[in-house]
C-alpha cells in the first residue's frame, strides 16, 4: 500500500472512529433509559439535534437577539448548558406525559416519544429551515495536531478522547458505584427497591434526564463536525437503532463496544465501497440476526 492510500485509509478510519463515538454515546443513553423506563426513546435523535442547535444559537444568535452582538455562549459553556437544558426539557416530558404510560404496553411510550420528536424536528425546521448551519470549534481546538503517524484536526482528537472518557465514566457510574447499584436494582425490581426506601419515581425521572443529557453532550460535540440541521438527529438515530439491535440493550459496555466497532466498520466501507457506507450497519444487523438472533451480547430484553 502506497503512502497516500495509507493516509486516506487512516483518515477514513478516523472518520469512522468519530462516528463510532457518537453511536456509542447515543446507544448508551438508549440502553440506560430502556433499562429503567422500559421504553425506547424515539426522541433521542431530536434531543441530540436540539442540543446542537442550542449550542449554535448560543454562539451566533443570542447576542444579536439581545442587541449585543459581542455576547456569545462559547463552546465550553454550551457543552454544559445545552445538555442541561435538553435534559430539563426531557424530564418535563417524562413527568407530564411519559409517566402516564408506564402501566401500558411499551408500544405507547414508543409512539409518544415519536410524536415528541416530530414536534421538535418540525418546530426547528419551521424556525431555522433545513439548510445546515456551520459551527466553529473553539480557537484552542482549531488547527491540526501530529498524532505520530499522521496529522489530524485537533478538534477530532478532542471528540474521540472526550467521548471515550464520558463513556467510561458512565460505565463506572453504573457498574461500580452505590448509585449505579440502585439503578440496576431498579431495572430488576423497582417495587422491591421502593420498599427499601428509595424514591423510585424521582430516580426514573433523573435517569431519563441523564440518558437525554448524554444525547445532548453528543449533540454539542457533533455541532462543529456535522452540519447543524433539524434532520441531523433522525438519520443518526436510525443507525443507532441498528447498533442497539446488534449489541443489545442489556449492557452499557456492550452498547459502547458495538457502537465504536460499527463506526470503524462504516469507516472501512467508505474506503472500499463508498456507496454502501450508509447501509452497511443495517446489513450487518441483518446478518447478525441470522447468525445470532439473541444479539451479540446475549440477554433478551
Amino acid at each position, binding site marked *: 500500500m502506497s503512502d497516500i492510500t495509507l493516509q486516506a485509509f487512516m483518515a477514513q478510519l478516523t472518520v469512522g472512529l468519530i462516528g463510532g463515538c457518537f453511536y456509542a454515546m447515543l446507544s448508551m443513553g438508549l440502553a440506560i433509559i430502556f433499562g429503567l423506563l422500559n421504553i*425506547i426513546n424515539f426522541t433521542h435523535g431530536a434531543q441530540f439535534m436540539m442540543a446542537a442547535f442550542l449550542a449554535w444559537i448560543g454562539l451566533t444568535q443570542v447576542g444579536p437577539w439581545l442587541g449585543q452582538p459581542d455576547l456569545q455562549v462559547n463552546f465550553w459553556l454550551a457543552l454544559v448548558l445545552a445538555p442541561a437544558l435538553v435534559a430539563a426539557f426531557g424530564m418535563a416530558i417524562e413527568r407530564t406525559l411519559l409517566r402516564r404510560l408506564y402501566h401500558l404496553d411499551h408500544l405507547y411510550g414508543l409512539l409518544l416519544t415519536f410524536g415528541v420528536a416530530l414536534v421538535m424536528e418540525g*418546530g426547528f425546521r*419551521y424556525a431555522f429551515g433545513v439548510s445546515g448551519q456551520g459551527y466553529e470549534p473553539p480557537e484552542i481546538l482549531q488547527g491540526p495536531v501530529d498524532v505520530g503517524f499522521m496529522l489530524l484536526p485537533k478538534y477530532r482528537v478532542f471528540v474521540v478522547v472526550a467521548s471515550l472518557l464520558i463513556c467510561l465514566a458512565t460505565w463506572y457510574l453504573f457498574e461500580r458505584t452505590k448509585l449505579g447499584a440502585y439503578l440496576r436494582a431498579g431495572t430488576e425490581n423497582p417495587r422491591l427497591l421502593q420498599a427499601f426506601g428509595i424514591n423510585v419515581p424521582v430516580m426514573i425521572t433523573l435517569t431519563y434526564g441523564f440518558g437525554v443529557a448524554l444525547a445532548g453532550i453528543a449533540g454539542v460535540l457533533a455541532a462543529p463536525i456535522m452540519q447543524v440541521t433539524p434532520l441531523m438527529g433522525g438519520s443518526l438515530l436510525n443507525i443507532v*437503532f441498528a447498533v442497539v439491535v446488534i449489541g443489545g440493550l442489556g449492557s452499557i459496555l456492550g452498547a459502547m463496544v458495538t457502537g465504536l466497532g460499527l463506526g470503524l466498520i462504516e469507516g472501512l466501507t467508505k474506503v472500499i465501497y463508498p456507496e454502501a457506507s450508509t447501509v452497511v450497519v443495517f446489513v450487518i444487523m441483518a446478518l447478525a440476526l441470522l447468525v445470532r438472533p439473541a444479539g451479540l451480547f446475549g440477554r433478551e430484553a
Partner: protein
Amino acid sequence: MSPTQKIFAGLVVAALAVPFVPGLIYPIFVMKVMCYGLFACAFNLLLGFTGLVSFAHAAFLGTAGYVTGALMIRFGAHPLGVPAAFAAGVAAAALVGFAIGGLAIRRRGIYFAMITLALSQIVYFLAVQFRWTGGEDGLQGIPRGSLLGLDLSSDTVMYYVALALFCAGFLFVERVVHSPFGQILQAVRDNEARATSLGYDAGRFQLLAFVLSAAVAGYAGALKALVFGLVSLNDVSLHTSTEVVLMTLLGGVGTLLGPLVGAALVVGLQNYLATIGDLVTVVIGLIFIVCVSFFRRGLVGEVLHWRRRRAERARPLPAREQPVVAKVA
C-alpha cells in the same frame, strides 16, 4: 350484516355518487383516501389484530408501486398489462415482507419495531441506487393502460375501477380478521404463551400475518401507482411509514373502519394544511401525543366503546337466580 358492514356499504354508496356531484368532493381526493385507507387497513391487520408494530410498511407500499409502475411503463399497452403489473407488485411486496418479517420475528417486543425500521432503510437505499426505480426522480408518467377493455385514462372509469379494487381489498381484510386464522392471530396477540400451549406456532402465525399485511400494503401501493401515475422516494420513506401509524392510531387500532377514518382525516389534513409547510410535522406530532395520551382507542374505538357502555347500562339487571332452598321433607 354486521354494523361494520352496514356502515361500509353506506360509505360505498356515497362513494358511488361522488362523480355525479361535481364540485363537492374531488374524485382524485377520494381515490387518495381509498389508497391510504387500504394501506392503513394492511397496517392495522398487523398492529391491531396481531399486536406487532412495524416501521417498514412504506417499504411494501413503495416496492409494489415501483414494480407495478416500472412494468406498466414497459408493458402498459398490453391488454393484460394492468392485472399482470398489479400481481407482480403485490408479489414483490409480499416477498420483501417475507424477508423483513422473517428477520424481525427473530427478536421480540421492543426490538421488533427497531429492526423493521432499520431494514426499511435498506429498501430506501436500494430505491435510490437502482436504475429501474428512477433514483432520486422516481417513476413519472406511468400509463394507466386498460382493464377488460375499459380505458383507465378516463378519470371517471379509473374512479370506479379503483372503488371496486378498494372494496375487494377491504372485504379481504375483513374476511381475514373474522376467519379462524384471524382468531388465532388475536389469540397470539392477547396471550402468546397460551396460544403456544394450545399448539399454535406463534412465530409462524406472526410471520404469515406480516407477509399478508405486506401484500395488502403492496396492493394499496400498486393501486396508488396506477391512479396517480407516479412513484417517488417519499413512498418508501420513513415519513410514509409514520403516517400510516398515525392514521391507524387516530382512527382506532384494532377496529375495521378506524384505519379508513384515520386515512381520510390525515389525507384531508394534509390537503388542508399544505400551505403551512413545515408546521404540518408539528401538527402531526401533536396529534400523536394527544392520541397516545388521551384517547388511545381512536375515533372509531371511542364510538364502539361508548356504544358498548350504553348497551350495558340499558340491559336489565341479570335475573336473580332463585335461591336454592333446602327442601325439608
